[in-house]
C-alpha cells in the first residue's frame, strides 16, 4: 500500500465514525437535491440539453489545438498577455514574475481551483506577498489553513459556531450565531482588500474561443470586484476550459447552475475579454491569462477517458456520491474530490499513487447520471482499476484469483472447501476481531455471516 492509500483509509475510517458531521453533509446535500430537481424539471428537455452540451464539449476537446490557438489570438489582439505553462512550477513562476514586475504588495483572489492545484498561495506567501481569498467559503478555509472540503462549497463541513469562533480568534470580532452577521464580517474585512490590492487573481469556468473571453460564474460578486478594481488581473485556467462559441453559454450557464447548485442561473456570470479598453471607465491596466497543462494532455491522450476533460466542475457528481457523502471531502487528499477527482487524479498525479480512489466506489453510477456533460465516470473508475492492475499486477490479487479459479472450476474441490469451512467456522470466534483474524477487513465493523448448514444443492436433493 502506498502512503496516500493508507492515509485515505485511515481518514475514511475516522470520518465515517463522525455521525454528526455526516448528518450535516447529508442534510445539506439533500436540500441541494430538492432544489436541483425543481430547476431541472423547469427545463423543457434536460436530456436533449445534456446530450448537446456533451457534444459541444466533445467538439471543443477533440479540436483543442485549434480552439486554444483561436482563443489566445483573439485575446492577444485586444491587449491581453497570454502565457502557457506545461506544469505547476512554470505557472507559479509566470504569476510571480507578473507580480514582481508590477511591484505589487497585496493580492486578492477569487476562487481558483487551478490555483489549489498548483499551490499558488503557498508560493506567493513564501515569496513574501499577502494573499487573501475573497470567496466567503475559501476565506474561511484559508483562515483555518485547510483545503476546501468541496470544490464548489469549500466550507460546507463547518458549523456557524465554528466559524464564529474562527472569526473571533483570527479577526477579533464578537461571537455571533447569525450566518448573516458572519457574512457581513467577511464583507467588511474584504471590502478594504479589494480597494487596496494591486493584483487580482481569478480562475475561469469557460474560455470562449470565438471571441477570446473568459467566463466566470459566481454568486457573491467577489470575482467581479477582483476583476474590476486591482491594476492587474491574472486569470489562471486549465487548457480544457474552452467552448467554441459565445452562444454556447446560453446552454452551459443554466446547466452549470442547475446541476451545480440547484439554481436557475448563478447570480453573476461575467465575461472578460481584455484589460480596460479605450473609452471604458475602469478595469485593470493589464490582463494576463495563464493556460495550464499540468498533465491534462496525459488525460487527453487516453481516448477512453478523454471525456473527463469535458468536466465543467459543477460538483454534481460529488453531491450525489455515496462515498463522498460519507467519507467527506478532505479524506480524498486531492484538489478535486469525489468521482471526478478519483477519475482524473491518477492522470494528473500518478496512477499507482492514486489508484486507491478508484476502488473507493460502489459503482452505483449516480455520478454518471448526475453529470450534465455525460462523462462516463463510473466506467472510468473501472478502467483505472484495470489500468493500474495491468501496469503493476499485485501478487496477492493474482494469487487470490488463481486459487479462486482453481476452486470454482472443480465442483468437488468447491464442495470440499464449503464443508471444510463449515467445520472450521466455529473456531473463528477465538480470533474474531483480533489481528490473527483472516477476515479482519470484514469483521472490524460487521459480523461474519454463518455458513449455511446445507448447500442449495443439498437442500434441493433433500426436499420432499
Amino acid at each position, binding site marked *: 500500500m502506498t502512503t496516500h492509500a493508507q492515509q485515505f483509509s485511515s481518514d475514511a475510517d475516522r470520518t465515517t465514525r463522525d455521525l454528526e458531521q455526516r448528518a450535516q453533509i447529508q442534510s445539506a446535500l439533500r436540500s441541494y437535491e430538492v432544489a436541483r430537481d425543481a430547476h431541472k424539471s423547469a427545463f423543457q428537455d434536460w436530456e436533449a440539453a445534456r446530450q*448537446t452540451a456533451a457534444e459541444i464539449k466533445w467538439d471543443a476537446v*477533440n479540436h483543442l489545438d485549434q480552439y486554444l490557438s483561436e482563443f489566445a489570438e483573439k485575446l492577444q489582439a485586444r491587449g491581453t498577455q497570454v502565457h*502557457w505553462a506545461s506544469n505547476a512550477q512554470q505557472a507559479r513562476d509566470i504569476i510571480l514574475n507578473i507580480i514582481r514586475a508590477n511591484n505589487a504588495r497585496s493580492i486578492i483572489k477569487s476562487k481558483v481551483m487551478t490555483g489549489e492545484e498548483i499551490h499558488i498561495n503557498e508560493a506567493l506567501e513564501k515569496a513574501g506577498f499577502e494573499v487573501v481569498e475573497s470567496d466567503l467559503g475559501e476565506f474561511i478555509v484559508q483562515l483555518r489553513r485547510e483545503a476546501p472540503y468541496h470544490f464548489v462549497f469549500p466550507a460546507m463541513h463547518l458549523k456557524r459556531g465554528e466559524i464564529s469562533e474562527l472569526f473571533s480568534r483570527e479577526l477579533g470580532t464578537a461571537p455571533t450565531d447569525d450566518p448573516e452577521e458572519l457574512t457581513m464580517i467577511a464583507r467588511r474585512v474584504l471590502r478594504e482588500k479589494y*480597494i487596496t490590492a494591486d493584483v487580482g487573481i481569478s480562475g475561469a469556468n469557460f474560455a470562449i474561443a470565438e471571441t477570446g*473571453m473568459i467566463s466566470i460564474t459566481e454568486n*457573491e460578486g467577489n470575482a467581479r470586484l477582483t476583476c*474590476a478594481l486591482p491594476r492587474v488581473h491574472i486569470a489562471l485556467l486549465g487548457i480544457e476550459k474552452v467552448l467554441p462559441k459565445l*452562444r454556447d453559454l446560453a446552454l452551459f450557464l443554466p446547466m452549470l447552475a442547475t446541476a451545480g447548485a440547484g439554481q436557475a442561473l448563478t447570480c453573476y456570470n461575467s465575461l472578460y475579454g481584455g484589460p480596460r479598453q479605450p473609452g471604458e471607465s475602469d478595469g485593470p491596466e493589464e490582463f494576463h491569462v495563464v493556460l495550464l497543462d499540468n498533465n491534462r494532455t496525459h488525460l487527453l491522450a487516453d*481516448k477512453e477517458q478523454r471525456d473527463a476533460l469535458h468536466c465543467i466542475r459543477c460538483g454534481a457528481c460529488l453531491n450525489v456520491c455515496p462515498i463522498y457523502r460519507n467519507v467527506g471531502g478532505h479524506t480524498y487528499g486531492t484538489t478535486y474530490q469525489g468521482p471526478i477527482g478519483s477519475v482524473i487524479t491518477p492522470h494528473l498525479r500518478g496512477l499507482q499513487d492514486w489508484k486507491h480512489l478508484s476502488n473507493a466506489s460502489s459503482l452505483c453510477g449516480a455520478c454518471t447520471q448526475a453529470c450534465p456533460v455525460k462523462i462516463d465516470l463510473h466506467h472510468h473508475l473501472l478502467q483505472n482499476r484495470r489500468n493500474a492492475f495491468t501496469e503493476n499486477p499485485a501478487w496477492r490479487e493474482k494469487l487470490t484469483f488463481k486459487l479462486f479459479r482453481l476452486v470454482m472450476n472443480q465442483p468437488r474441490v468447491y464442495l470440499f472447501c464449503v464443508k471444510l469451512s463449515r467445520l472450521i467456522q466455529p473456531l473463528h470466534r477465538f480470533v474474531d476481531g483480533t489481528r490473527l483474524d483472516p477476515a479482519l477487513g470484514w469483521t472490524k465493523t460487521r459480523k461474519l455471516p454463518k455458513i449455511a448448514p446445507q448447500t442449495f444443492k443439498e437442500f434441493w436433493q433433500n426436499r420432499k
Partner: protein
Amino acid sequence: MSEREKILSRIREALTLSAAVPGHPQDHLLQVVSEEEAAQHIHEWLPAVGETLEDGLALFAKNSYELKTDFRLVDSEEDLLAQLAEMASGWKKIAIHRGELTDAVCGKLGLPVCITDEGYDASYLESCDVGITQCDCLVAQTGSVLVTARSAGGRALSVLPPHHIVLARRDQLLPDLPSAFALLEERYATNYPSFISLITGPSRTGDIERILVLGAHGPKQLTVLCI
C-alpha cells in the same frame, strides 16, 4: 520550442487517436447535433417562456420575486423619478453613468453624484449609497439583467455600492438566454466591451451552513425599474 508550441504539439499528438462521441455507440465518430442545429433548438430545451411581452413581463416579475430582486414597472418618466425620490430619502450620495435614461434622473435627486465615465476614486464609489445604471437587456427566462462595460458605466458601478438600481425600457425585455447572446453578437461582434455580465438577483452566498444570505460582496439590494 516555446511552451506554447510544446503544449500544442502534445495536444496534437494526443488527438491522433480519436475518441467516441458521448452517448453514442463506441467508435461512432460523427457529431449528431451540428452547431447550427443546436443553436436553432436550444430554446426548445431551456425552461419555457411565453409568447407575448405581457408573458415576458409576468415571468420576469415572478423570477424577480424568487430571486429577491425588487422589480417595478413604472408608467412614465415622472413616475420613475417619483419612485427614485422615494427611495432616495436615506441616501447621501449616488453613483451613476451617462446614458439616455440615467441622464434624465441624474441631476434631479439633489444629491452629490459620482459619474463613473469621468473616472472615479474606488473608495469614494464604495461610499456611495447606490449605483444607478442602464443595461443592454432584461431576460425574462431567468430574471437576469445583462450589462456591459459600455452600457452600465464600467465594471465596478454595478457591483461596488450596496444597492444597484437598473433603469430599463420595456422594449429591452428579451424572452430567453439565446436571444440575449444573439443581441450581444449583433450589437458588439466587431468590438466587444472588455466586460459583460449577466446579473441574476442581488449578491448572495450559502457558504455558511447553506443558509441564504444576501449581499455577500456585491449589492444587498437589486432594483429594476422598467419604464
